[in-house]
């Protein structure tokens, strides 16, 4: 597969890892946050940790869309789906994420709610067209990568003057979350592996202010294992030189200004939400998107007068600390005992790129396997 296989070459990976071993300073630690779950997934799936010197540690960040979605938003969607005769469409990733009281979309569907998994945002539109007598709500989640497709279908729905299609918008923004983590300083990190496909949309410049303000080295990294290792090397070089800048390893897909057309489309359909709650990070100002007033007819929160729902976190679950890069999954008392991929208690155990699921699937026995 072109542009995939070249970046999964084990020999290249080992050579780059060799340079890392040569260049790290033995008398310090390197705590590097991989912001995205995609990087977490690659680090575990390909065994990248095994290639790293002991003093290079990966700290997992909040870049997993289903992990940072607060349970209350899922609960709100479930209530909507169960209270009226609507069809709720969502990406499959969200189906098993725990809402409040041991509930999930999966369980709500089993109880009879009409919840449908879709692959593309356009599928939700197609379902609306095929069911003109019913209301269809698209439960939209994701960072800047997934937002333009949602914007695109809202614009199409407007052009077609559809009256039975709305979007429950939960799109969130990467730079504010990154700024929040750096401002708190509790993760005590030395550098950041920056997002791949989020950056494809928003461009590498989007992180400039944040990096400058917190004097933080950042390398935008592709999701393939060789990309991750090369970016780690670039990050270690910045740290060794005592410099901090936004560097772009993923040049084949990321430009300085990003995808202008996609950004313009997002801007046409969405506006900043003054505040939005993130699981783990709490309420962050200007960190999420809402549908603009011009397109209010397609806003499920407005059409169905959806009230905010608050839920209490699962007792003992340290997902919030994991999402802030403060704790590792295996420090959680629930990890691997009451919280497993089969019976997830916290969101990080659900998505295959959630830090807990990655630890469980690939990392749980890593030490024993390699010993």
């Amino acid at each position: 597969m072109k542009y995939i296989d070249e970046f999964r070459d084990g020999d290249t990976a080992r050579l780059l890892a060799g340079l890392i071993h040569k260049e790290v300073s033995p008398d310090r630690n390197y705590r590097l946050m991989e912001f995205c779950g995609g990087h977490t997934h690659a680090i575990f799936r390909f065994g990248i940790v095994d290639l790293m010197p002991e003093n290079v540690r990966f700290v997992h960040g909040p870049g997993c869309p289903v992990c940072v979605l607060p349970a209350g938003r899922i609960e709100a969607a479930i209530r909507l789906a169960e209270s009226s005769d609507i069809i709720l469409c969502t990406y499959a990733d969200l189906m098993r994420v725990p809402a409040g009281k041991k509930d999930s979309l999966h369980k709500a569907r089993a109880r009879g709610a009409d919840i449908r998994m879709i692959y593309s945002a356009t599928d939700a539109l197609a379902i609306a067209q095929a069911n003109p007598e019913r209301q269809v709500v698209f439960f939209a989640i994701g960072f800047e990568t997934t937002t333009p497709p949602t914007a695109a279908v809202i614009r199409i729905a407007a052009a077609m003057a559809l009256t039975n299609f709305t979007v429950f918008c939960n799109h969130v923004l990467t730079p504010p979350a990154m700024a929040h983590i750096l401002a708190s300083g509790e993760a005590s990190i030395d550098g950041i592996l920056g997002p791949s496909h989020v950056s494809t949309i928003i461009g590498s410049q989007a992180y400039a202010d944040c990096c400058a303000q917190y004097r933080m080295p950042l390398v935008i990294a592709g999701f393939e294992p060789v990309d991750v290792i090369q970016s780690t090397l670039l990050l270690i070089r910045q740290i060794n030189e005592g410099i901090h800048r936004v560097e772009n390893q993923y040049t084949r897909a990321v430009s300085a200004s990003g995808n202008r057309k996609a950004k313009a489309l997002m801007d046409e359909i969405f506006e900043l939400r003054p505040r939005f709650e993130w699981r783990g990070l709490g309420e962050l100002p200007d960190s999420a998107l809402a549908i603009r007033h011009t397109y209010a007819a397609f806003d499920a929160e407005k059409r169905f007068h959806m009230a905010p729902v608050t839920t209490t976190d699962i007792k003992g679950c340290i997902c919030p600390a994991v999402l802030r890069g403060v704790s590792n999954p295996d420090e959680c008392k629930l990890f691997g005992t009451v919280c497993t991929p089969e019976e997830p208690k916290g969101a990080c155990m659900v998505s295959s790129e959630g830090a807990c699921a990655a630890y469980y699937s690939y990392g749980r026995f890593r030490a024993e396997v390699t010993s």
Partner: protein
Amino acid sequence: MNNPDFKHGVIEMAHGSGGRTSATLIESLFVRHFDNPLLQQGNDQAAFAVTSGRMVITTDAHVVSPLFFPGGDIGSLSVHGTINDVAMAGAQPLYLSAAFILEEGFPLAELERIVISMARASRETGIPVVTGDTKVVERGKGDGVFITTTGIGVIPDGIHISGHLARPGDAIILSGYIGDHGTAILSSREGLEFGTTITSDSAALHTLVAAMIEVAPDIRCLRDPTRGGLATTLNELARQSGVGMHIEEAAIPLRAEVRGACELLGLDPLYMANEGKLVCIVPQQSAGRLLARMHHHPLARQAAIIGHVTSDERNLVVMQTGFGGMRVVDWLAGEQLPRIC
């Protein structure tokens, strides 16, 4: 009584009532196509002579969406699947039974198509459907058609194949490309449609098994990696036998297209379903001879040794990745769903 209208008609409640409408459907559809002396007798059961040796019985409920997919349909699948479950004991399959649960309103044309496909699979494999049953459920209470097939077979003397017999050091053989069935099903599933030349690998494996036990009567385990894929089957065998497994990603036969589909949808080919493949665990000294024999069978041309059984109390399946790292190949949690992140 007229025959049902197989062009435009649909299943009605009366087709399952046990009355004359039921009888006509059975005669004009099932008995006509499955055509064999035992079924022709028209009893509620089939009587046959018991042969010597150990007998096996297995049953399998088939629900599949969509009902028709590239390379097969629920009918052929329900014949192959059950024959394979019999064959995985090292047995020669003898007879099948079939129970149909039909949903009111299901087009008779589609039902006929399924039954013809089932009859063809039965004829081609030489295993007759000798008894059956039909029930109809109200519209909305079924998904078109569900088919349960039961198979009976006999194990030749001296053959002892079971999931608990794997021993450290044994070779793990896989009979061919993984993930074809899962990919074919996904490609035709509503909302996911993608173009591919991949077809389901649905096939009956009893002749392959017969050839295998002829050259390697010491085979310890056989299992077909259906739902849950290769990863699930290896984990089942490891747990049943109280051993671990070590496999090499590079040795696992995988078509480029299946890999492409998995990359696109965020799926792992190790968990993709197969309907015409088997995993075989055999002592090392027989592995080479067995593999050579398998390569001569049309259903195992790409057979490969993909790893070996290890001694491991935790019953882990570990894989050396193509990239060079090691990872645990775990049980599948929930169902494998396409992901966007």
